[in-house]
């Protein structure tokens, strides 16, 4: 079974160089640009790993967060194969519950590296890239770190054209915005980019007056410690896909919508042949349409709420293709032996309780969850910034002022990790955070005027009816910010 996308209306996957490698001793072929996980998935294998109790684990988030795809590569265990680039002749093995102790191979790690910089930007998505560019324009030195092998964050899989304002690249596809931002960032000699690198912790270094971060840099599956000293830090690490509770929720074939989008639009790999989509917000609707574009059958979309949450235009497109959207319906159970073979959906009453006897069997090989995101805040919590629980922002977030600075001086946030929103506003928030960080260090070419303009543009972007939720979220964040400062 091969899951490569043959034809695609927007992305051209043809002409890529073939790369052969070994999977559990058997030679298989992927393409240049594949991750290890995408190449294996393309060959029809969905089980990548095993949990501690031997349950099958497959791809889920596709962006290095969920840890369901850990495999052994060239004898090195626990490689996150969804973000590890495929290389010629590597030896990839499924990791079983009883991972043998790794042989101590001193060459598996390189010597550590020290880097000192004005501003560390964590996460190279729309927010982090924009932040880096703005800070660099004012004259600050920037280190931009990202876990993935390429910059762009979630933009690199957004094949649809953006809404919003011209300033924020309306009418351009996300994939192309990512290329523009990357070109701009690479043009600045005072931005250094570290890819395949994870900022794993905040440490105290009495010899340095500023922040000290530990970074793990990966290269050829080997890792290297990088110690970063910086005066200020911008956290724009994005968000994590939400999971739901139902029997079978951990079977390979139950994927996050973002993971499915990555598989299709970045690697040209179909998640399966028939999909049940859960969630009719914008992400659920857009990804359903993109599945159709990739030649995948979408059986239906179920949505627990009584109304469709996403834009009407996206829902209308799906209807034109004959994909039904069932509101007040939810997923009850997923079944299958090794991976997903089908699911039961159920109708909900006005109290969101399942209506007995309404179960329906949906035959599918993929269940795609598009049920919201939770901001990633782990580094912020380690930095001891003041947090608040704000449901409209997607959960617990750092409170911040209109300049995107948190309660800890020198720590800024932007993008989804400061509250779930979308890429256009993430770019402006990033710009504001970058400019503010530079300004605080005394880099001021035209920072103050520019920042004023950006703040106005951000307000305009959020002014429409669809900006209501983030508007409430950001208002609450500012209220919490004021309350916190009133208390001091």
């Amino acid at each position, binding site marked *: 079974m091969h899951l490569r996308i043959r034809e695609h209306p927007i992305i051209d996957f043809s002409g890529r160089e073939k790369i052969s490698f070994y999977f559990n001793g058997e030679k298989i072929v992927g393409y240049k640009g594949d991750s290890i996980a995408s190449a294996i998935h393309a060959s029809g294998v969905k089980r990548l790993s095993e949990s501690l*109790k031997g349950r099958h684990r497959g791809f889920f988030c596709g962006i290095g967060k*969920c840890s369901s795809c850990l495999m052994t590569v060239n004898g090195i265990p626990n490689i996150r194969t969804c973000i590890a680039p495929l290389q010629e002749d590597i030896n990839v093995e499924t990791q079983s519950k009883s991972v043998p102790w790794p042989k101590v191979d001193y060459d598996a790690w390189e*010597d*550590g590296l*020290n880097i000192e910089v004005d501003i560390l930007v964590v996460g190279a998505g729309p927010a982090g890239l924009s932040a880096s560019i703005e800070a660099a324009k004012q004259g600050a030195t920037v280190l931009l770190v990202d876990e993935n092998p390429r910059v762009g964050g979630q933009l690199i899989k957004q094949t649809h054209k953006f809404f919003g304002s011209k300033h924020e690249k309306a009418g351009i596809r996300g994939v192309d915005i990512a290329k523009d931002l990357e070109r701009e960032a690479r043009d600045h000699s005072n931005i250094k980019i570290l890819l395949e690198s994870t900022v*794993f912790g905040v440490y105290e270094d009495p010899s340095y007056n500023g922040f000290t971060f530990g970074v*793990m840099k990966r290269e050829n599956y080997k*890792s290297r410690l990088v110690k970063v000293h910086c005066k200020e830090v911008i956290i724009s690490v994005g968000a994590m896909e939400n999971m739901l*509770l139902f029997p079978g929720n951990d079977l390979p074939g139950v994927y996050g919508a973002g993971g499915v989008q990555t598989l299709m639009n970045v690697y040209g790999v179909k998640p399966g042949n028939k999909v049940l989509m859960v969630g009719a917000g914008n992400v659920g609707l857009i990804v359903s349409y993109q599945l159709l574009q990739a030649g995948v059958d979408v059986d239906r979309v179920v949505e627990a709420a009584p109304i469709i949450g996403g834009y009407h235009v996206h829902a209308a497109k799906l209807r034109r293709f004959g994909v039904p959207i069932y509101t007040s319906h939810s997923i009850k159970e997923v079944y299958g032996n090794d991976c997903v073979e089908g699911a039961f959906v159920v109708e909900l009453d006005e109290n969101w309780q399942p209506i007995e006897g309404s179960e329906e069997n949906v035959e599918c090989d993929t269940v795609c969850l598009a049920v919201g995101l939770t901001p990633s805040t782990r580094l912020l919590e380690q930095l001891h910034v003041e947090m608040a629980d704000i449901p409209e922002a997607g959960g617990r977030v750092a409170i911040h002022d209109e300049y995107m600075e948190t309660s800890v001086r020198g720590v800024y946030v932007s993008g989804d990790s400061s509250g779930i929103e979308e890429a256009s506003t993430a770019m402006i928030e990033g710009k504001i955070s970058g400019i503010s960080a530079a300004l605080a260090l005394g880099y001021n070419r035209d920072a103050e005027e520019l920042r004023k303009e950006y703040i106005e543009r951000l307000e305009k972007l959020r002014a429409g009816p669809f900006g209501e939720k983030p508007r409430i979220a950001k208002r609450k964040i500012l209220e919490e910010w004021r309350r916190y400062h009133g208390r001091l």
Partner: protein
Amino acid sequence: MKTVIVCRCEDITEKEIVDAIHAGYTDFEELRKNLRIGMGPCQGRVCIPLVKKILQRETGRKVEENPTVRPPVVPIPLGMLTKGWENEE
């Protein structure tokens, strides 16, 4: 009751969490130390929002806190820390 996995890394089920809450482990830290939820390789990225939901449902209390986050936030190979240093440029 069919198995519903909450913590994908440590294979902790919804039933185990509900039982623990009713046995008196009623906050995040207690649940984590008792069950190891969120202590596997993903460090709670998948399960923390779910545990929060279950904890709220079972105790009727609004759960605002997240469990304490300590470095490292992702697993790192210990051998990496044993190597020497060089300075950039």
